[in-house]
């Protein structure tokens, strides 16, 4: 692949109850003021963003997920093999914060420490209706090893900061892992069943003969 060396692919999922503003957050992040004018279609469920952090090139694939309760069971289909998750709650809605807690539990159970978590208390523009105290949220986040952010998609506050921090954390995790299994290539972080054809050699001969043939 062209100049693929030194570049990372990260998958980030957005999880949270319906109406907490997941879609607005991701739209705000990927479409800054300049951008709204050159994207003709508005699609919010899957977005790509290229970052360059001090020479390290990162391709973020941001997956928005369905938030309604009836779709809860589909979670694993979306979050499998992701490197990071943004757990969004609405600061005016205590239930949505409880929902975040249940997501954290599920993610830690299914993906362990491999996944970097960020908890976002969204809608800080509605500060006067706040029902989730900042202190509680931050304490909880540090307890489960996540970073807490206060965001407002409406006022564009904290959004970029949050994604940047998440990306840096994912970078650290991957590099740590690479250092541990130094001999293994980066591609190994992507668990997937593929036929790897070595670019320098002809592919290996077929290993399996057809049984109807024998």
């Amino acid at each position, binding site marked *: *692949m*062209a100049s*693929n*060396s*030194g*570049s990372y*692919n*990260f*998958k980030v999922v957005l999880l949270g109850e319906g109406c907490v503003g*997941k*879609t607005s957050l991701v739209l705000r992040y990927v479409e800054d*003021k*300049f951008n709204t*004018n*050159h*994207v*003709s*279609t*508005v*699609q*919010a*469920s*899957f977005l*790509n963003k*290229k*970052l*360059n*952090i*001090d020479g390290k090139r990162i*391709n973020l*694939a941001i*997956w928005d997920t*369905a*938030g*309604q309760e*009836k*779709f809860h*069971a*589909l979670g694993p*289909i979306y979050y499998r*093999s992701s490197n990071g998750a943004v757990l969004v709650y609405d600061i005016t809605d205590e239930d949505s914060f409880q929902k975040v807690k249940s997501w954290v539990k599920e993610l830690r159970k299914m993906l362990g420490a491999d996944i970097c978590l960020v908890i976002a208390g969204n809608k800080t523009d509605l500060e006067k209706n706040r029902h989730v105290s900042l202190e509680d949220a931050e304490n909880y986040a540090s307890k489960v090893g996540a970073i807490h952010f206060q965001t407002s998609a409406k006022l564009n506050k904290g959004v970029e900061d949050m994604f*940047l921090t998440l990306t840096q954390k994912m970078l650290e995790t991957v590099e740590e892992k690479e250092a541990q299994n130094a001999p293994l290539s980066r*591609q190994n972080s*992507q668990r*997937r069943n*593929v*036929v*790897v*054809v070595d*670019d320098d050699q*002809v*592919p*290996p*001969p*077929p290993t*399996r003969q*057809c*049984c*109807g*043939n024998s």
Partner: protein
Amino acid sequence: MWGLQYDENVHDNPFFNEIITHHGDLVVKASQEKWVICIPRAGVIEPSEIQVDIILDHILVSTASNVCFTLSKKQVSIQNKEITTADHPSTPIRILFEETCYIEGLKYTIFCLDRPLFISRAICEDNRFRVLETLHDCIDFIWSENLSHVLIKIQKLCSSFVEQNRGLAMENLQNQKDLIGSLFSQCLQIVLKNRTLSDDCENIKIAVETYMQSCLDRTLVKAVNTVTCFGDATLNKTVRNCSDLQLRDLNIPLKFCDIVTSARSELSKINNYVTILDKVNCLKLTFNHLYSTSICLTSDDILQILVFLIVKLNISNWTSNLVYLTHFQFSSLNVSNETNFLITSLEAALEFIKSDEFNKIKSSQQTENPVFQSIITNDLTQLQDLLKYKKSKKSDANLCHPLCDCERCTKSIGSSHNVTMFNEKGQSLLTYATTVDRPEMVEFLISIGAEVNSCDYFGKTSLHYACAKGYQDVLLILMNCKADVNAKDHDGNTPLHVACNNGHENCVKALFYTSKTLDINCINKYGDTPLHLAIKWNYVGIVRSLLENHAVANVPNKKSQQPLHLAQNYYTERLLKQFNAHLDSLDEPEFTHPSASTKSSHCKDHGIRAKGVEQLKKIDLLLKAIENNDFPLTCFYLGFPNGSTTYDFQSKCHPLCNCEKCDDLEGSPDVVVERINVNTCNIDGFTPLHFAAKYGRTELLRILLDSQALPNLKTYKTLQTPLHLACIYRRLLVVKELVKCGNCEVDTQDYKGNTPLYYACVKNDVKIVEVLLSNGASCDVKNYQGTSIIKEVQEKTLFGISSLLKKESEENDFL
């Protein structure tokens, strides 16, 4: 995007490096002022050209509108990821990618451009960065790479692969993947032999894979269909049973109606394509239709619309499509690309349809009428009260005079509840009670004179609804009350059509058992017979039932499709061929095959069908008794003398003896009113002998054989004889007993082509193997997957058996 999207490391780009090293101040300023730095991609600009004024041309000052200025005060407009300059308005410059940089504490945005701004360049398409989206693209690409000669080689390789792997459909998924994977490596090898490798390796892989898939054509699709056949049948059943789902049931706003319609017509084409690339592209275009609205769609909306589309489209192999897309893609390495997102969305929608949550979504049943309400709440006494109450009131009706039609009088007559009333869909009380599965109410309504065959506004009778929803109890009551089994609705569908379409095997079987006048080959408005429908939706069990009941398999529908054309998987195809062959033999001249004998030859394979529900229940009780080892009860059902150990007329002490025991023998036949024939089978084709063999009831088995039970009858689905079952469940004594009886065939093949010996070997039961071999079982029989017993044994390293078999085959060779 599937193929390779343009990407380059900007740190290797001379233009970018020039800016960074010599114009650091500009970068700092860009970071502060949120300017955008445009970088022409590597290779399109000569190092000598990189001058200060050119660089200034490439820095955009952002504004709120889509028109903006460069630092050199030139005007450009940005739209649709393209930049148009004033000097060349007709040839916009593509933005290849956008990158946000956080370098040394500064933050700025880069646009990587296809060509430099304000410098005329011939547009040269670089093959390396072409995005392959369809099969057509791939073939174009292979031609442009001067590789056209490999196309024919790949084609040859694929056709010989198809030739060699006729059993591909019967392999499990992993084997299919391995086979196709190795075929892909072979194809790739051909290409790599012909050229040196370069950067565009990824695109070559994609193109070769896609072309290979198109060469395999329907073979691969059908193989995957076969593997996923049962999953698809279950899914189809769910989907068919909620075909009256509306947008509002899924909370999809009506404003999406238009985009849903256009997305639907796009997605309906998915089965026209055979390659993964084209199928994914079809998904992508479908999504693009959804995004074409100015309303922003959330993931919830998209998922719901996708669920709605799947329910509404007439596509019967979604599971298969999904498995194909996720498991047979060998060339692309990138996990987090858009393709993956599209496929995952499809997977999520299918998963949701399969979940319990989806079951909860039903068209809301609402009614104001108290009578219908009482049916919904399943309140029989209330229903009785309402109907009775009005009846009594009617008799002493309080009208002004008998013919009065003043408001008060008409109201008292008009609102009267009686059994003939109907709701806004024209459904009678009986039909309504059927749709919500209330057998007691159906019984009650019929008992007070409800018309069994009344139609609603769609021409559907209660029987249609019972079949559509799979309510067997209601169906049996209706059939008992002489419901018209061949009634047609406005689409020409009979109840059998409906049951076949919605996948209710229980209802199909119930219809066969309860009706003698059932028209099995009836066609609907579209010329489809019930067989067409059952095949289309992959209901293998129903297809078998229909064929066994002599459904004609060569009726073309109005699209001139015969059932065989609709067969999507190997199972239904084989069933059709099997029974077609049987049909052909029926068509032979009568004098060689008198119809009676052909009929009996058909019956010879299977047990005698129970006639009517009563008998069917009885045979089930009998089989249950055998399973529970309740010997006296079994004997009672079969009409054998109660409790005696053997049933033998010669077991009397002497011919004229009338001691107690002998009296019993003589007397019992009078006591038993109706006994079951020993060769009767249940709905799945199991005879008492099958059950006795399965559960190892040796004593009973002996009695059954003595009373003319046929030892070679097969079950319907699995085509297994009692001997098969005895071997599967390792009943040594039963096996001995069966082979001893004389006319038992030891080498019968079941639905997989396996003989009893095969099962005995697999179960590693040396003793049974010995018995079978000594009774002439052959160890050379291959099953339908082409595996012989010896091979299977060797693979499983069952040495004891292996040596036995070898000895046997050596002896045979010697003879």
